[in-house]
């Protein structure tokens, strides 16, 4: 027995128009100052105004958002009493929007205890809309939440199926202005979602197709979307790929590349997509003996015919490194500009946090502490995993 949860997804050019006929009194847009600066908040406000909805804005969401930010947003929600909460931006604003919504409806719950157990009883005060402005996080279509515990410099995987958005608006125009670097980082995030969703131990028949197609879309369109920001076909297909991958992994799970990426990201403030994208080939090599046929299928779909087996899985890892290079992303930790001494100084914490990340529970092969340490070290130098 398992569940597949999804918002109503309105996608394609003009999708934002769905806001024009929204029923409600007050909306709280949860976003960041960059979204305000580049005019995307105003764009959403104009649509909500057509629906006669009074709009308030919480724009204090930072990258790697903290529990404290979520608490501030929840306080604003209690002050404003919205019947719609709108998460607008990349993964961080959408994750904070989900958390604000839960805390607004359930002030008795502490953020660190938002877990997929029991009932939350949401939708008594408000409902949630997600509008992604990057193409990769998939947070518009998942119930997962990642918050940072700033005291312990640790990312926490939280969320409950009830806190999935009611409506996800996947409008390519909202992501059209992404700089190439952001398109590259977030596009890799979509790829990691697709690959891990397809190969983790919780994958299902209902998620496999979404993950396979998202992989195909990323390999086909990400280089174009990065090299030419005016290539709207590529940008739109990547926007769709991100949502497909989000639905896929969100109803299965991510895995070890996410666990390691969260760990590195919180220690060294590396953008999420860049961190998880870097670790993916290493974790594929580590898992290659466990499910070679699934990696081989992904490789074939990505445009690399193969004879199957473990060598095909390792080839797939190599192709992902090639894709990273093609879009200008690092394939080693040293290329990220992290000094070896600093890295080794954090290694115990990196290993400990990765092993205790919730995404690790679906790893095809349970790594020991020493194996995890070695994978971190191999990734620093760019050595393919050989154990």
């Amino acid at each position, binding site marked *: *027995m398992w569940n597949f949860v999804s918002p109503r997804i309105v996608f394609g050019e003009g999708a934002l128009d769905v806001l024009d006929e929204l029923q409600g009194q007050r909306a709280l847009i949860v976003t960041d100052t960059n979204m305000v600066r580049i005019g995307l908040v105003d764009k959403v406000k104009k649509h909500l105004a057509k629906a006669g909805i009074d709009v308030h804005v919480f724009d204090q969401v930072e990258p790697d958002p903290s529990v404290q930010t979520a608490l501030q947003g929840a306080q604003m929600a209690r002050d404003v009493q919205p019947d719609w909460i709108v998460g607008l931006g990349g993964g961080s604003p959408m994750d904070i929007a989900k958390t604000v919504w839960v805390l607004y409806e359930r002030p008795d719950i502490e953020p660190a205890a938002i877990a997929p157990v029991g009932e939350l009883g949401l939708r008594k005060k408000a409902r949630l809309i997600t509008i992604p402005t990057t193409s990769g996080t998939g947070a518009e279509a998942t119930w997962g939440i990642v918050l940072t515990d700033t005291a312990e410099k640790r990312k926490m995987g939280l969320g409950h199926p009830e806190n999935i958005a009611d409506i996800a608006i996947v409008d390519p125009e909202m992501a059209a202005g992404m700089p190439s670097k952001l398109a590259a980082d977030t596009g890799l995030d979509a790829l990691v979602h697709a690959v891990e969703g397809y190969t983790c131990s919780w994958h299902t028949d209902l998620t496999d197709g979404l993950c396979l197609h998202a992989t195909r879309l990323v390999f086909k369109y990400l280089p174009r979307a990065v090299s030419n920001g005016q290539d709207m076909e590529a940008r739109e297909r990547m926007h769709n790929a991100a949502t497909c991958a989000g639905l896929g992994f969100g109803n299965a799970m991510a895995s070890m590349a996410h666990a390691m990426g969260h760990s590195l990201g919180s220690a060294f403030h590396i953008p999420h997509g860049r961190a998880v994208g870097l670790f993916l080939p290493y974790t594929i090599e580590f898992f290659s003996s466990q499910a070679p046929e699934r990696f081989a299928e992904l490789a074939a779909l990505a445009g690399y015919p193969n004879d199957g087996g473990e060598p095909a899985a390792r080839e797939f890892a190599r192709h992902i490194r090639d894709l990273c290079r093609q879009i200008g992303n690092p394939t080693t930790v040293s290329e990220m500009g992290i000094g070896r001494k600093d890295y080794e100084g954090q290694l115990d914490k990196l290993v400990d946090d990765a*092993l205790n990340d919730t995404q690790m529970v679906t790893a095809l092969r349970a790594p*020991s502490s020493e194996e995890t340490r070695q994978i971190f070290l191999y990734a620093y130098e760019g050595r393919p995993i050989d154990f």
Partner: protein
Amino acid sequence: MGFKFPSDEWVKEFARQINASKAYEESGKDWEGDWLFIVEADDAYPKTVYYFIGLSHGKSTDAAMIESESAREAQYSMRGSFTTWRKTIEGKLDPIQGLMTRKFKLKGNLAKVLRYPKSAKELVNCVGRVPTEFPG
């Protein structure tokens, strides 16, 4: 020959497996908190069974089949039907998925439990290492 489930011998072997696990010792080194596992009667087994499992700093401090839920104090409890527990022991049901689909019900400080997914996973591995015989 296996250990009959449910029985006191079974839970004591589970504790022995925990104490033999280097991986649990490592991942649960900061954990403090005892558990009650409640195996509820269903069509496959007629009697509800209660297990106490003491866990502290990577070791099992005590393990016993007890008379009732209130016979020993524990900070956490996990409750499910006999059939759900059987599927978990046989490796057919991931207990975390069991919790998410409400086949298992958990009581206790959830935020704390969420900080130890690796040790939870290793406890499941220890369950899998107990050679188990089921009734019927």
